[in-house]
Each structure stands twice: as C-alpha cells, then as structure tokens.
C-alpha cells in the first residue's frame, strides 16, 4: 500500500476558499500524512531532519499549494533548498528518495485554456512545473501527473465542492492496496486517474 505525504503550503489559509476546503476533505481520508509547512514553520526555519524523515517514510509525495506567480509560495522554495540536501537527495551518495513519486496539487486562478501555448499565459502548466519535474528527476524520483484545479478565481463554491470530491477519490485510489503508482506518471492531470479503466483496482 502506497504511503502518501502531502506537504501543504498556504501562507494565508484563513482567507483561502479552495485549499481550506481541500484540506478539510483530505484530512478525512485515513492513512494520508498532511504536513502543514506554514503552520509548522511560521518563521520559515525548517527542521531538516524532521522533513527528511517524513520523506523517507512515504512513497508518494505531493506539494500542495496555490500556483502563485507560476510557482509556489515562498516556503516551498525554502523547503526544497534546505531539505533536498546533496549527498542525501541527490549526488553520488544521495539515494534516499530513489524510486519515490513526486508531484504537485495546485490551484490556478486562470482557466485551463489560458494555460496553452496560444492562451493567456502562453504555456501549459506542465511547462511552468518544469523546476519541480527536474528537481524530482535529479533526486531519482518519478514525477507523477500534477493534480491541477483551474480557474479558481471564477469558480463558484459548488465547483470547488466537485473538485474536492474528485481529489478525495483520486487520493483514495492511490491508497488502495493493489494500486500501481506507475500508471500516474503517464497522465497530464492526476484527475484523469478516475477516467482510467479499473485495470489496477
């Protein structure tokens, strides 16, 4: 059974509509570790040993955060800089993360069609996620498909509810004993997992 870790980062969760709801829902799924980075390290002083232990204890690692400025809130960068140490995460002797799955659960303000080569932002989400993808690769991890919720700026509360239920289903499927994490590397959005034939179920 795959062990799932969600490193959650939102600097103003009290004002968030999307992530507050997502987090509430995710917390009800048994067996998923939620690591609330801003709550844990309000001064951005990250406990490296604790974070590395958490990573070692899990197989699928998500960074969940709003997609601020085509990237992530500051603490995610701080986390990457400090936790993924040379000789541990990467380099000749850095094999601690080998074979794990890494990805993002993100919310983007714009609609999906805005994230197209001919769209408002000129690139796909995948393009923008390149630093995460390459980071995973350098650390000998598989970059799985990200779970992207588009258009949160214009979404109604009911839409968010729908997205929330979908994410819960996806995460529950990851937790099934017979689930093969290999399938998620081939998707473009993790939500597509729900449309796959239940060959792995």
């Amino acid at each position, binding site marked *: 059974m795959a062990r799932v870790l969600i490193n959650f980062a939102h600097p*103003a969760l009290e004002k968030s509509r999307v992530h507050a709801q997502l987090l509430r829902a995710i917390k009800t799924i048994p067996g998923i570790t939620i690591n609330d980075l801003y709550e844990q390290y*309000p001064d951005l002083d990250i406990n490296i040993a604790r974070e590395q232990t958490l990573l070692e204890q899990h197989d699928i690692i998500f960074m969940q955060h709003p997609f601020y400025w085509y990237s992530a809130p500051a603490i995610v960068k701080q986390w990457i800089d400090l936790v993924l140490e040379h000789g541990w995460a990467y380099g000749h002797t850095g094999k601690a993360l080998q074979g794990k799955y890494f990805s993002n659960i993100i919310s983007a303000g714009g609609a999906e069609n805005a994230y197209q080569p001919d769209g408002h932002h000129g690139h796909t989400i995948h393009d923008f996620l390149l630093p995460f993808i390459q980071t995973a690769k350098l650390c000998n991890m598989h970059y799985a498909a990200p779970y992207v919720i588009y258009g949160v*700026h214009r979404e109604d509360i009911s839409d968010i509810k729908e997205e929330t239920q979908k994410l819960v289903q996806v995460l529950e499927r990851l937790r099934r004993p017979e689930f093969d994490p290999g399938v998620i590397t081939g998707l473009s959005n993790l939500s597509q997992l729900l449309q796959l034939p239940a060959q792995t179920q």
Partner: protein
Amino acid sequence: MDQHSLLFQAMVYLAAAIVFVPLAKKLGLGAVLGYLLAGVIIGPSVLGFIGTEGEDIMHFAEFGVVMMLFLIGMELEPALLWRLRASILGLGGLQVVISAAAIAGIALLLGQPVNNSLALGMILSLSSTAIVLQTLNEKGWMGTAAGQSAFSVLLFQDIAVIPMLAIFPLLAGSVATESTSHSSSLRDNLPGWGQTLVVLGAVAIIIIAGRYLVRPIMRVIARTRVRELFTATALLMVVAIAVLMNLVGLSSALGAFLGGVVLANSEYRHELESDIEPFKGLLLGLFFIAVGASIDFKLILEQPWLIMGLVVGIMTVKGIVLFALGKIFKLNIDQNLLFAFALADIGEFAFVLLSFTSQTRLLSSEMTAMMTAVVAISMALTPLIMLLYEKVIQPHFTRSEVKAEREADEITEKHPVIIAGFGRFGSMTGRFLRANGINATILDLDSDRVDALHNLGIKVYYGDASRYDLLAAAGAADAKILIIATDHPEQTLEIVKMAQRYFPHLQLLVRAENNEDTFELMDLGVLHIYRETIDTSLRVGVDALRMLGNRAYKSERAARTFFRQDERTLKGLSALRDDKKQYIISMKERIEEMEKLISSDRVKTWLDEGQGWDPESLRDEIRGEKREIE
C-alpha cells in the same frame, strides 16, 4: 500663631523636607541625609521650630517608627524568612551575639555594672533598618551580596528585639534586688519574672488574634467594597496592638511590627500594603527628620570628645565584628566592606530600647540621654559613610581589579563588543553572542556574579560602566558595539551619556525598562532601543492567537506588524513630548498616551496584511470580464 499647633508643625516638617531633600540629592548626598539635615535645621539646636521639648520630637519619631515597622513587619513573609534562614540565623545571630558581647565586655571594663553592660551591648548591637535599607535601595545595592546579607542581619535584629524586651525587665529586676534604692519604683509592682510573663502573654495575644480574628474581620470589610475601610482597618489593628502593648508597658513600635508580621500571613496583605505604601516614604522621612532633630547639640557640646569617642568606638567595634563575619560568610572584600560600613551604625530600635530601659530604671537618665545622642549621630553618619564608600572605596576596588585583569591578558583583550550589566538580560545576549563565537568584554557591578562568571571562564570586569576610566580600560576605544543591559534606568542613562561623549564611534544597543525610559533614550538620540518585555509579551500574544485557532504564520506576521507599528507610534509620541520640554507627565496625559497607542492599533486590522496572497481585486476583475463576455 500657636507654634505648637499640629498644622504648624506639619507645615514645618513638610517644608523642611521639600527644601533639604532635593538639595541633598542635588549635592549627591541622598534623601536620607537630606531628611536628617532638615531635622537638624528645624530642631531645637538650630532654628527651634519644632520640639522645644525633646518629648515632642520623640513623639513624632515614634509615630514614624511605628508605621515603618508595621510595613517592615508586613514584608516579613514566612517564605522569605525561610529562604534566607541560613544567613538570617547564622550571620544575623552571630552579629547580634558577638557585637553585644563585645560592647558589653568593653562597658564592663569601663566600670559599668553587669546588667547595664549587658543592656548596652544588646541595645548597641542593633543597626538601623530604616536608614540602611533606604540607603541601599537608593543606591541600587539591595541586589548585591552585601545588600542581601545586610537585609538578613537587619531581619534578625528586628526579631531579636522581642526577646531583648522580654529580658530587660529581668535585668532591671536583678538590678533592683542588688541596689535596693530602685526597688520601690518597679512598674506595676510586679517582680521581674511577672513582667516577662506579661510581655510574653501580650505577644501571644497578638499572634492568636492575628491568626483567628483578622481574617473574618477582613472578609467582612472586603464585602463592604469601601476601599478606605481597608486602610482604616489596618490602622486600627496597629493602633489596637500599640494600645495593648502600652498597657503591658511595651513599645508601640514593636507592637506595630508584630501586627505587620501577623498581617503578612493574611491574603489581604498586598491590598493593605498598596493602601499604606504611599504613606511609607513620607513617614520614613518624618522619622529621619525626628532623628535629626533629636540630636542634642547642647549635650554634645558639653562632652564632645566623650560622645564622639563613643560613636567612633562603638561603630569601629561593630564594623570589625561585621567584617570578620563577612569574611567567614565568604563575602568579597569590596562587598564585605560595604556590608560592614552599612551595618556599623546603631538603629532606631535603640531609641525604643533606651526609653524602655529608662522606664525600667535599668539605665540612668543621663546615660540614656547620652546614648540617645550617640545613636542619633551614628545614624546620621551612616549615609555619609555609605557616600564615602561609594566615592572613595568602591572606585578604588574597581580600578585595581581592572588593572590586575588587564595586566594578566592585555594582548587578547580586544573584543568588538562590550556588555554593561550581565544580569538576566545581558547574560542572555552575552551567551548568544558567545555561542556564535563572539567574545564580549563584560562589565558588572555584582561581585559575586563576577566571581561565578570567572569560574566559568568568562572574562568579566567588576565595576560601574558609567565611569570613563572603566569603559576605557574595557577597550571602548577599539570596540564597535556597546550593549547596555543594566537593571537600573538611571545608570543606563549615565552610561549612554558617557559613551556618547567619549566614545562616539560606539554603536549603542540599549535595554529600556518601559516607555518612559524609551523616551529618555530617544531624547538622547539612541537609535537601538530594546524595550525589555515587548518581545515576550508579543510571543504570548502569538501563542494566544494560535490557541484560538489562528494560523501560526498569520499570528507571527501580525506580531511583527504590531511591533513595527508600536515602535512607529512611540517615536511619534516621543516627538510630541519634546515640545513640552519636561519629563513630568500627568496621569491624564499618560492615559491619553495609552489611548493613542491603542487607537493606533485599531487603524489596521493586523491580520489583513498580505493582499498578494488573496487577490480579491483580481477575482473581481475576472468576474467583471466574465460578465462582459456573457
């Protein structure tokens, strides 16, 4: 106008205090000397405004002593006594016993009868709680090793008066049996042991009543919710006890002291203390004035050499005993000198005991008068002796210690940081710097702490950082930063001024106790001011916010925002204060200041900062576009 009316006397006392105390302070003599001087001037010896009869003055003095002892008694918490038990019993007990024995021995050698010698020894072994504690407080020496030891000894002396008062009738009784000429005038026609029994009985009554009567009475008073009734009740208790003590022929001052000790056990103690505290300073002043006025210059002029000889002789004997004891109890030489100097005087209890002995005819009235003069002079000398210590002896130690230190390791002694004051505050900063590989030169005024730090291998200079030569010796000329973390705001200001004048290149990082200090430091142009509790208070606030369910990051940011805003507001207020060109602020203005601070807190809701994370405006814009398209 009746010169002896109460109002006229009150006016004379108050006016004398107002004239002479600021004068004495200005001259660096301290408030106690000011009061004493005022007493001398208005007393019968100079102007004769008050107390043309000596009894008047002693009446006044007695009143001050009664009130002071009541408060001292109230501060005598059993817990405090227990914590200081070793030094109170050991140091205090030995001081009283050895000094009394030494003085009694000398008196015996000078041809006094045995009982008289014993009484004199006991009376003169005591020191002045009022003057010594007041002076130590004034100079900020209470926290030093010498201050603590002196306090312990004074406590023991205060307690030792009780058995002494019980013993005196016994001594007088045996005098009576020896010399039949006095036997007819024994008070109450009781034998010596009977008087002793009466005294013990009165003490027992006070203790039992205090334990079982005071509490229910106070509860009733508290229920009335009339504040001044507390003060009235406390005073009534003192007066009632005093009356009882007078009935059995004891001093009302001692009675008040006992009353205070009884109230120290009550849960209403702090209430009572805060009610009476304002009277304390004034009453003490009154007492000091009375002491000054009671110095009988006529008597002194008649036998100047005998009296001065007695003063010097007694104080020398006491000083030697104290110094020897300080040595045994491992006080450093400078602290030991302060200890010996402070307690070498004879205390106000001596007045009480002397009047008691003259009542019981233990001592002759001439002897009592002479001793009263001796006691008063020795008390008047105490602040002067302390001044001598402060100006002449202490600097000597400071200088020699620093020199010895510097000779030992002159080359390595070039630290970029100097820390003045290594108490709770400074030690934390110092430890932090040290943990990060920055050595600091540390200056501290507590020699025991200095020793302890030496043992830990930390280089500390003993001495007052507001002295130019000490700062220079500590390497101020080559240092970059001076951290001022002393406990005393006045000393802090002195150090700042000194450093600004002679070492302007130093960055000053200054601890401030409260907003007042902060304003004064701002006026001096200090850029880096650290209000000592603000960080802790805000950390408590952050934790409270978190416990109420707020996000950690939001709470921390709110605290930082609040901190910045508070500093800004304070600077604004400081600028406003400058216009007034005065430091005395009325309570109303202080409240207004607090209001300004609080209302500026409301200008912004702290927790709303960080709009970049929550682009409401962006959402509005997008929704608007959507509507346009539809």
